[in-house]
C-alpha cells in the first residue's frame, strides 16, 4: 500500500503519513552518530568519524561546523551517499548567511533558537513544495545566547525542532540516549570536564575503535568554538578508561 503514496512528497497516505519524510528520517538513522551535551557553562558536540580512506585528506571531512562565533552545528547524515552530505552543506550555507543577515538588519547576533527555527522552517518548506525532496539530515545545534544561557536544539527532516539537555542522533541514537538518561545529572554538568567526558563516554558506547574515531568540539561562554585535536581526545579517553578501571576495582573489592 505504501508504494502508491510514497512517490511524491506532497501526497498524504490515507492513514496520515508523509512517506517521503519518514524515509528521510530512516536515512538519518543510518548516518554516523552525533551527541550533544548542554552543561552549565559549556556545550559539547561529539561526532563519530567514519574511518577515512588512505588517500583522502582527513581535514576535509568535517562534521561539526561553526554557524557564527557563538553557535555551531553537527549533523547526522549517511556518509556513503555523497548526495546527502551535500544536503548538509546547503543547509549550513543558508544558516551562515542568515546569521550575518540578521546581524546586518538588527545589529544583534542570532539567538540559538532563532537560527534553529530558521533551519527547521527551511526543512519544512522542502516537505511542502512541488518537485523537491526533504533534506536527509538531522542536526544538533548548540550555542550560547546573549544572556549567557547555553542551549542545545535538535532538528529533523520534517522540520520540527526541540530543545534538549542532552541528545543523540544517527545510528544507535536510541542506545546512546538511554545511556545519557541514566548518566546525565545537572550537578555533574556544572563541571566542564564532566560534560566533555559524558559526551565521549556516550559515543564510546557505539563507536567501534575508540578515541581516534571521535570528533569533538566545545563552546564555552564568551569564547569561540574549539575543536579538540586527536591528542586531546586521546587524553580524555585514557582518563575515562582509568576511571572505569577504578570503578571496576571498587566493585570487585565490595564483592570480595
Amino acid at each position, binding site marked *: 500500500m505504501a508504494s502508491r503514496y510514497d512517490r511524491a512528497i506532497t501526497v498524504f497516505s490515507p492513514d496520515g503519513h508523509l512517506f517521503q519524510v519518514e524515509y528521510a528520517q530512516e536515512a538519518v538513522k543510518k548516518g554516523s552518530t552525533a551527541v550533544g551535551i548542554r552543561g552549565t557553562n559549556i556545550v559539547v558536540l561529539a561526532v563519530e568519524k567514519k574511518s577515512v580512506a588512505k588517500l583522502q585528506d582527513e581535514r576535509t571531512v568535517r562534521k561539526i561546523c561553526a554557524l557564527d562565533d557563538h553557535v555551531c552545528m553537527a549533523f547526522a547524515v549517511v556518509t556513503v551517499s555523497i548526495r546527502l552530505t551535500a544536503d548538509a552543506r546547503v543547509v549550513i550555507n543558508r544558516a551562515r548567511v542568515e546569521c550575518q543577515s540578521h546581524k546586518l*538588519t*538588527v*545589529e*544583534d547576533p542570532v*539567538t540559538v*533558537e*532563532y537560527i534553529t*527555527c530558521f533551519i527547521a522552517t527551511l526543512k519544512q518548506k522542502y516537505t511542502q*513544495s*512541488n*518537485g*523537491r525532496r526533504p533534506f536527509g539530515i538531522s542536526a544538533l545545534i548548540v550555542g550560547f545566547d*546573549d*544572556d549567557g544561557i547555553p542551549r542545545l536544539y535538535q532538528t529533523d527532516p520534517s522540520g520540527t525542532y526541540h530543545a534538549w539537555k542532552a541528545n543523540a542522533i544517527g545510528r544507535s541514537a536510541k542506545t546512546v540516549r538511554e545511556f545519557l538518561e541514566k548518566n546525565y545529572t545537572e550537578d555533574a554538568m556544572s563541571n566542564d570536564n564532566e560534560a566533555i567526558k559524558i559526551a565521549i563516554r556516550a559515543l564510546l558506547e557505539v563507536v567501534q575503535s575508540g578515541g581516534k574515531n571521535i570528533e569533538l568540539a566545545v563552546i564555552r561562554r564568551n569564547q569561540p568554538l574549539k575543536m579538540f585535536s586527536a591528542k586531546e581526545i586521546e587524553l580524555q579517553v585514557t582518563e575515562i578508561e582509568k576511571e572505569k578501571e577504578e570503578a571496576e576495582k571498587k566493585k570487585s573489592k565490595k564483592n570480595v
Partner: protein
Amino acid sequence: MALQDVCNWQAPDTQESSLHLPQVSGWTLPRGCDPQAFLQIHGPKLAHGTTTLAFRFRHGVIAAADTRSSCGNYVACPASQKVIPVHQHLLGTTSGTSADCATWYRVLQRELRLRALREGQLPSVASAAKLLSTMMSRYRGLDLCVATALCGWDRSGPALFYVYSNGTRLQGDIFSVGSGSPYAYGVLDRGYRYDMTTQEAYTLARRAVAHATRRDAYSGGSVDLFHVRESGWEYVSQDDACVLYAELWEPKPSKEEEETSKAQS
C-alpha cells in the same frame, strides 16, 4: 515554484518600494523627470520646524519637545505631540515632516511587534534604530524628512539613537533635533552630567526647550517632558513654554543667600 527559484526569475512588476507601506501607489511623473527636483518645485509644502531633545543618563533617558507644528509662516497646530511612544520601553522624538514621522513610527511599531512575537523578546533599541534607518533609506531621494531620536531602555541599559531619513544612524548621549536645536544644545552642553539626579535632568530638559522656544520662531506652545526608566516610559509634565521661560528668570534665593540674609537680620 521550484523552477522559478532554480532560474532566479522574478515577476517583472514587483513594487519593491512599497514593501513596508502596503497599497502605496507611486507618483505619476512626466517621463524623464527627476522625482526630487519635481517635488521641490511642484510638490506640497510640508510642515517643518521644531525643538526636540533627548539625553541619556544614569537613571534612564529623558525626551522633551515643544508642541508647535508650523507650516511655513503659519502655526498649523499649537498643541501637537512630538514624542511618540513605540512600545512600553521605547519612545521616539520626531522632527521634520509630521506626517512622515507619524507614518514611519507606526510601521516601526508593527515591525517590532512582529519580531517580538517571532523571537519571544522585544528587539533592542539598537535593532529598532537599525530597522528604521534601513526601511527609510530605501526611499532616499524622495524628499522624506524624518529626524528622530529613539530613546529606550533595553538589556544594555538606557540607550539613545539618532536616526535620519537618509539612513544616518548614530549612537550618543545627547541629541537635539530641529530648528531650535542650536539653542537647546547650548543649554544642554552646559548642564549635562551622566550622574545627574532625576530632578536635575528634568530641570535641564525643561530649561533647554524653554530657551529654544524663546529664540526660535518655529518652536513654541508647551514643553512636553517624558522619562524612560527601567520599568517603562512615563509622561512627566507639560508646561507652557512662556510661563516656563519666565520662571527661569525669577531669581530663586540660593541656600547661602538665605543664610546670610538671616544672619544679617
